[in-house]
């Protein structure tokens, strides 16, 4: 997803006079929001059995693989795809709102 999708938002903020610190904070806050969003969904959708498997996975690598598998089975989308939808909608709405006179 390293395609500078957020570039239009950053450019608008720069034009609005936001400092580098403020833009960096916005990027961090957006990250925080997206993580909370994904985590909330996962806790609602993962079964107890899924969580138990995750709890007892031998290492981080296996746990990560397992999470991807559960996402694929339960949700049918990867967390990256969900994040991408979130970001695209965010950018689209932001640019649209700011294009108004």
């Amino acid at each position, binding site marked *: 997803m390293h395609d500078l999708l957020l570039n239009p938002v950053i450019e608008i903020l720069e034009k609005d006079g*936001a400092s580098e610190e403020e833009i960096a904070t916005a990027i*961090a806050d957006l990250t*925080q*929001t997206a993580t909370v969003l994904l985590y909330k*969904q996962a806790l609602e959708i993962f*079964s107890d059995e899924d969580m138990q498997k*995750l709890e007892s996975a031998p290492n981080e690598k296996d746990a990560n693989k397992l999470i991807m598998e559960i996402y694929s089975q*339960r949700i049918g989308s990867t967390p990256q795809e969900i994040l991408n939808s979130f970001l695209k909608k965010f950018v689209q709405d932001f640019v649209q709102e700011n294009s108004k006179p």
Partner: protein
Amino acid sequence: MEGQTAEVAPDTTVATETPEKKRKSLGKRAAHIIRNRTVSYIKNLDPRGKDKFWWTGNLLSAATSAGLFLFAPGARLLKTAATAGISVGLQVAETAGEKYRDKFWDEEKKAERAAKREEKFPEGTSRLKRFLLGISAGGIYGAAVGLPLELPTYTPI
């Protein structure tokens, strides 16, 4: 005379700053804030002892207003856009994961379940947080600065 010339010499730092340099500088600052603030926020994200309002509504609302859009005049617009993005994100997962979710569960029940998860599966929830933070941080940071973001692996969440 030489001193005078040096004093009035224009600062060319800004003028010669290329978009790439600017992006790197922004990336460095954003990475610092993500590592220091966002990582600890997610680490302490624990629904135990919180009510349904915290878990379902205020949690997301807090995340979107926690200092995210303090600056004007784009503040309101950014917040509106983020809220729209959140609802789309929720919709994507909710529609797809519907058959695995108990549709008769109310918000209170969901909040209770989330709290029980933290209690019963401390390592599992911690792994889940770390993984999802990695996905979000990597995706959003990349979409902003075009570079991958390495989060410290030693940070226990």
